[in-house]
């Protein structure tokens, strides 16, 4: 049975020109698997992830034909229901780690609090262990540090560690490794992978990195202008049909590419219809 089931999710914001749908009729089921969401900057990946947790920022609105988690209709969830879900059963690693961390609390204090909320038996030592698991060298110093005292990649990993402490049933990870080089990235992915395989966690992995997603995830949704334009088994990336997906891999700078301008996409109006 799927953990999360979404039908026709639409997220809208009021703008100067009226309401604009930034997520349009998105449907998918998430099982105990790794589901990738890739797509252009601004295509609606983050807003899709947030809507799953009822975190569409006001005055924006999310609506769906169906939005179920473990048999529960999230569209009718009360504030109290959400408290029991967010950070415990469904956790989200936000795209801007420094923004989502509390600037006036040390990392350690935030992690211990997150652990307590999630009912972790020994929050202090779990915090330490989880930081080391995400390859933080100097866990003691990081626990005592404020967010602004961390480098970009350290902040990102602290955020992941905090979300992992709760051992959620579903993890929505929004660009969780974009500030990390490949050597550390691999270690972080391995942790997420273990959680899916050994504990049956469902993972929504949002990324703009198609190559990364296709090697790591089981399935990939490709978004463009708010819509899912393509769904692929990760292994079938070579058989992508949509021109956005197909063009994407050509644009990547590579070590063995000759100098000169990178190929760019010639976006067609009809892609956004």
């Amino acid at each position, binding site marked *: 049975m799927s953990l999360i089931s979404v039908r026709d999710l639409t997220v809208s914001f009021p703008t100067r020109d009226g309401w604009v749908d930034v997520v349009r009729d998105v449907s998918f089921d998430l099982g105990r698997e790794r589901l990738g969401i890739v797509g252009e*900057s601004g295509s609606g990946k983050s807003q899709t992830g947030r809507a799953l947790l009822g975190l569409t920022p006001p005055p924006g609105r999310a609506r769906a034909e169906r939005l179920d988690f473990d048999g529960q209709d999230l569209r009718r969830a009360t504030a109290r229901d959400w408290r029991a879900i967010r950070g415990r059963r469904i956790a989200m690693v936000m795209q801007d780690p420094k923004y989502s961390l509390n600037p006036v609390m040390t990392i350690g204090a935030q992690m211990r609090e997150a652990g307590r909320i999630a009912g972790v038996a020994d929050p202090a030592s779990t915090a330490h262990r989880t930081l080391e698991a995400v390859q933080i060298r100097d866990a003691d110093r990081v626990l005592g540090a404020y967010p602004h005292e961390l480098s970009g990649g350290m902040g990102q990993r602290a955020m992941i560690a905090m979300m992992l402490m709760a051992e959620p049933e579903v993890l929505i990870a929004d660009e969780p490794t974009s*500030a990390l080089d*490949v050597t550390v990235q691999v270690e972080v992915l*391995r942790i997420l992978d273990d959680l899916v395989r050994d504990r049956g966690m469902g993972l929504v992995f949002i990324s703009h990195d198609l190559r990364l997603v296709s090697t790591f995830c089981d399935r990939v949704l490709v978004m463009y202008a708010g819509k899912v334009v393509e769904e692929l088994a990760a292994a079938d990336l070579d058989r992508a049909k949509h021109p956005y997906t197909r063009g994407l891999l050509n644009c990547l700078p590579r070590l063995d590419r000759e*100098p000169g301008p990178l190929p760019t996409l010639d976006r067609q109006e009809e892609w956004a219809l």
Partner: protein
Amino acid sequence: MTLLSIQDLNVVFPGKSGPVHAVRGVSIDVTRGESYGLVGESGSGKSTVLRAVAGLAPVSEGTITLDGQTLGRKRDRAFYRRVQMVFQDPYGSLHPRHTVDRVLSEPLAIHRMGDAEKRIARALDEVGLGQGFRFRFPHQLSGGQRQRVAIARALILEPEIMLLDEPTSALDASIQAEVLNLLDRLRVERGLTYVMVSHDLGVVAHMCERLSVMEQGRVVETLTRADLRALRATQPYTQRLLAASRGFTRADPVT
């Protein structure tokens, strides 16, 4: 000719559990018109080097010279007209209550540059954001859109040197390609000089003639683009990075 020279730079942050020696004796010379890369482990001090140049880090030792003139502790307005920085964390660097329009017009006003309308429209176009974004607030933008506003803000002053901290790591490949092509083109057209931090060796090999590899606050090796492409690295960290970047399409990273 050397435009920016960093000699024996040391940066020490006061930390609760003792001082953090983030940069330890880094020396880098950047030639006018060059694009210079900085790569290295997370936490190795890359951002801190850029911030020190921008006058935003506690330098404990060393000198930074711009065009032969040694910089003091404080940077004046004229400095920021010549040197602009794009920060790694675009959320933190954009004022939450300022619209994109204000973010872009304020530096123009401060530096008394005319033609604001035209410059703002052009800067937004160049980073692939249309006029429709002009009156949005940062929280009304996606991560990659914020990143592009930060790049537009730096470009709009037409500086000589751009300090770019992971400028495209939040962008998908199609928009990254457009931004990198733009940066490349501007460098040729306006003779700009870049110091660029990236964890993506493909990006660095594409953009930079030379690069330094940092580890725990030190520069451990300096390579040319040709070295990088020929995979001629001597340091274990660089070799690991090269190996991982090369095999990524084929090798499953989570076996």
